[in-house]
């Protein structure tokens, strides 16, 4: 009974620090994460954009390999890969003919025994995470779930598609103050990072702007694609918006690692485009990480920080109204 690990291509390249931080954290937690033997690319957006069978076959081969290796669940930290793998499992388990057809394509019998886990689910399943915290990550954070972690609800089925809370709860456990903000699940531009950088700059810009307006010190992500768009595409975003955003974008595992006292370098924080400045002392955030626009918190920011979604998601008179 082992939990397998599917890194996915970007974690070997552009999102290297995600995998570095995940492995550092899992090691500190004493959890082994063996990689699925000889895994391949899940096909990402490109495959399902161009061919349905291919889009099912690539993930099916990965899952079949995991099954063969005796893995009963597979951790897929990249939200995009997670989506492809979940969708594939869902579709193949729901359609026997299709399952047989795809099994034929990948020359292996895919059975669907291995469950697919995203990073939030996996971390959420670790008991007593709080006790591992050495230096509370005492920062105001905006948890960014993006699209594929929570949607489509019928397939991923682990948090609600609007106003999700699971990541905020995790952040609370490590001492952070998760903000109530508006762009938790709005799209960052996803796979258009290279082909339509203009669109990515616009969509990601909206996300950063809201986080900054509400006084967030960092955006927490669980997807290399989100990170790429929000961090590496920062110059494009700033150019379009005509202003600077210094807010860092941090993988959930990096935040956790910092709280557990793991050395920033091991977490790959130096590889970010936007410098993560509160890596050492973990005390006060530098003023520079907040743009002038957020210096005077708006009414929204005030009420938002007042009741963080994790503890009182729906405070308000109408919710408590009697019959």
């Amino acid at each position, binding site marked *: 009974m082992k939990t397998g690990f599917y890194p996915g291509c970007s974690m070997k390249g552009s999102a290297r620090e995600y995998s570095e931080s995940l492995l550092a954290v899992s090691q500190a937690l004493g959890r082994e994460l063996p990689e699925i033997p000889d895994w391949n690319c899940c096909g990402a957006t490109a495959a399902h954009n161009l061919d349905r069978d291919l889009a099912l076959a690539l993930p099916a081969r990965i899952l079949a390999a995991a099954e063969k290796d005796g893995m009963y669940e597979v951790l897929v930290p990249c939200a995009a890969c997670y989506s492809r793998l979940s969708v594939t499992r869902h579709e193949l388990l729901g359609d026997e003919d299709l399952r047989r057809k795809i099994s034929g394509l990948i020359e292996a019998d895919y059975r669907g025994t291995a469950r697919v886990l995203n990073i939030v689910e996996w971390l959420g399943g670790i008991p007593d995470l709080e006790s591992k915290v050495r230096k509370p990550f005492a920062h105001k954070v905006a948890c960014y779930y993006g699209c594929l972690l929570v949607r489509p609800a019928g397939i991923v089925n682990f948090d*609600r598609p*609007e*106003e999700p809370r699971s990541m905020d709860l995790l952040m609370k456990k490590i001492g952070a103050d998760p903000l109530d903000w*508006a762009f938790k699940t709005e799209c960052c531009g996803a796979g258009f990072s290279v082909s339509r950088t203009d669109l990515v700059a616009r969509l990601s810009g909206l996300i950063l702007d*809201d986080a900054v*307006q509400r006084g967030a010190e960092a955006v927490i992500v669980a997807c290399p694609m989100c990170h790429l768009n929000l961090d590496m595409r920062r110059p494009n975003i700033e150019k379009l918006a005509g202003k600077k955003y210094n807010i860092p974008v941090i993988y959930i595992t990096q935040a956790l690692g910092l709280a557990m006292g793991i050395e920033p370098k091991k977490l790959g924080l130096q590889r970010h485009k936007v410098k993560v400045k509160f890596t050492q002392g973990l005390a006060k955030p530098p003023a520079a990480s907040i743009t002038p626009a957020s210096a005077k918190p*708006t*009414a*929204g920011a005030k*009420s*938002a920080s007042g009741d963080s979604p994790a503890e009182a*998601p*729906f*405070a*308000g*008179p*109408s*919710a*408590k*109204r*009697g*019959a």
Partner: protein
Amino acid sequence: MARIGVFICHCGENISATVDVKKVAAAASRIPGVAHSVEYKYMCSDPGQQMIKNAVREKNLTGVVVAACSPRMHEPTFRRACAEAGLNPFLCEMANIREHCSWVHEKSDATTNKAIDIVRTLVAKVKKNKALLPIKVPVTKTALVLGGGIAGIQASLDIANAGHKVILVEKQPSIGGHMSQLSETFPTLDCSQCILTPRMVEVAQHPNITLHSYSELESLDGFIGNFKARIRKKARSLDEKLCTGCGLCTQKCPTRKIASEFDAGLGLRPAIYVPFPQAVPNKPVIDREHCTYYLKGKCRLCEKICPTQAIRFDQEDEILEVEVGAVVLATGFDIKHGDFFPEYGYGKYKDVIDGLQFERLASASGPTLGEMRRPSDGRVPETVVFVACAGSRDPAKGIEYCSKICCMYTAKHAMLYKHKVHHGRPYVFYMDIRAGGKMYEEFVRRAQEVDGVQYIRGRVSRIYERGGKLVVKGADTLLGARPMEIEADLVVLATAGVANAGAEELAQKVHVSYDPYYFYSEAHPKLRPVETNTAGIFLAGACQAPKDIPESVAQASGAAAKVAGLFSQSELVREPLIAVVDRQAPPLYSTCVGCFLCQAACPYQAIEKEEIRGRDGRLIKTVAKVNPGLCQGCGTCVALCRSKSIDIQGFSHEQVYAEVLALLNRGESDV
């Protein structure tokens, strides 16, 4: 031995032109058991009827078949004639040789033969007919009205004014229902309280109406004309007879920060309270969930201050038993609220409110005294977005139907807002405008043309807060579905109208059926819209489906007319064509095996369980029993019963089997 008389009618030429009536009469006379067979020009004429009466007396007939027109036309005529001659009317049948024979076939032997077949069939049936006595049930001329909204109020007043007693039971401390919460009402924009309060007072003062407020139905047994109801009068924690309604207690109570139900959570009330100033009865109740004394054992300030010593902390609920002849359900509806619209931030942002909250904001008696101020910071909203169909027509949210009233009240809200904030900008996001009613379309047009409300056709996708404003993301589907954003100060959701939380429980208590959304089902969607499938229980108002005030009132008056009709006689006489369960001598008692398939199938909840006990009180078996007050004689149970233990009078197994055999020209002896 049967002595059947057969009377064949010519109907002028209507029958005799195609059917050889003489031949039919001759053939009939040869059927075993037929003692008399004649034909005549007009059977329904006075001489025709007289012929039948004479024959019944002179020939000692045990049954009569009139071969003429459709029984739907003249069955009552001939049954009455038989009764007058001393023959039980249920021993008379009609053979339809006009509509089903002479009018639809050409003149021929085949047609005459068919007429003979029909006569033979009915003769076979009538031989198996049994004398039946009409069912008489006494009627208690008191009505129980459940729910004191506008529908319950109207029904109570109409019944009371017809001279009958009414017991009105209202769950809340005051009657008035949702209408009392409304500011102004469409399509005339007259003040809701102004037209409602006089009726509430009338209820309180009417000599024929007994009002039990702050009360609920415990149980209901019995059947039409003869119900027994148990009513729980919840403890108000004060002696209503002593309390003068001076209001000192409510002013002095130190526990004052409780969200007011009447103000839809936008205002506050004390622990001892009257829901609103015009309440009927105008006596407070102590809310034990919040009162400091009940929570912590200290305070009793109200007791000290009350000039009449009316407060009773140890008062207990009281159970009343009443007998009533009819029940009117008028328990109304609710609108959806709570955490069902996360993408709109409903329940999260203070300035995303629902329709009833807007009514309170607009009401001169509301928390802002009618000034348009938004809940979060009290500022006057400059831009207000109204979202129609919020949760209605939305299978994903579990509601497929249109809530019917919200298009109208949304137009009203936008208008009221504009009347109060002249420079304000009201926008309505809608899918369709449903304004079918007298002066309704004109009302909506006025909102657009005169008051300048901007209507945008499209459903809002998302609402979130940004810098103290609410960003509303919509699209105008009439403009290429281009997305658009409006920065609003206030958003009003026209949330779906839904059944009351307790609707299902109540339906089960009184045995009426309900639809998948827990709205009560009418007996027929077109022709019996105010009755339920349970005889003697009627519907009024929004408990049946979302509806506006005029419709609620019309239905309430309809229900009241039905009740008054029922109460117009002291006895209810019903045709005895109902089901009966087999009864036998011991040791069998009944062939019924107690499977109760029949009970589940009966649309009228007419089948009960009866325990058969020995002399020593030991339970021998449980069998089905038909309540003659409820059974409508549909026969569904009969077809379903595998042990053939339930039969229907007038359409019994024996009768219909005899008909089939006779029609196929096989005498009983042939089988």
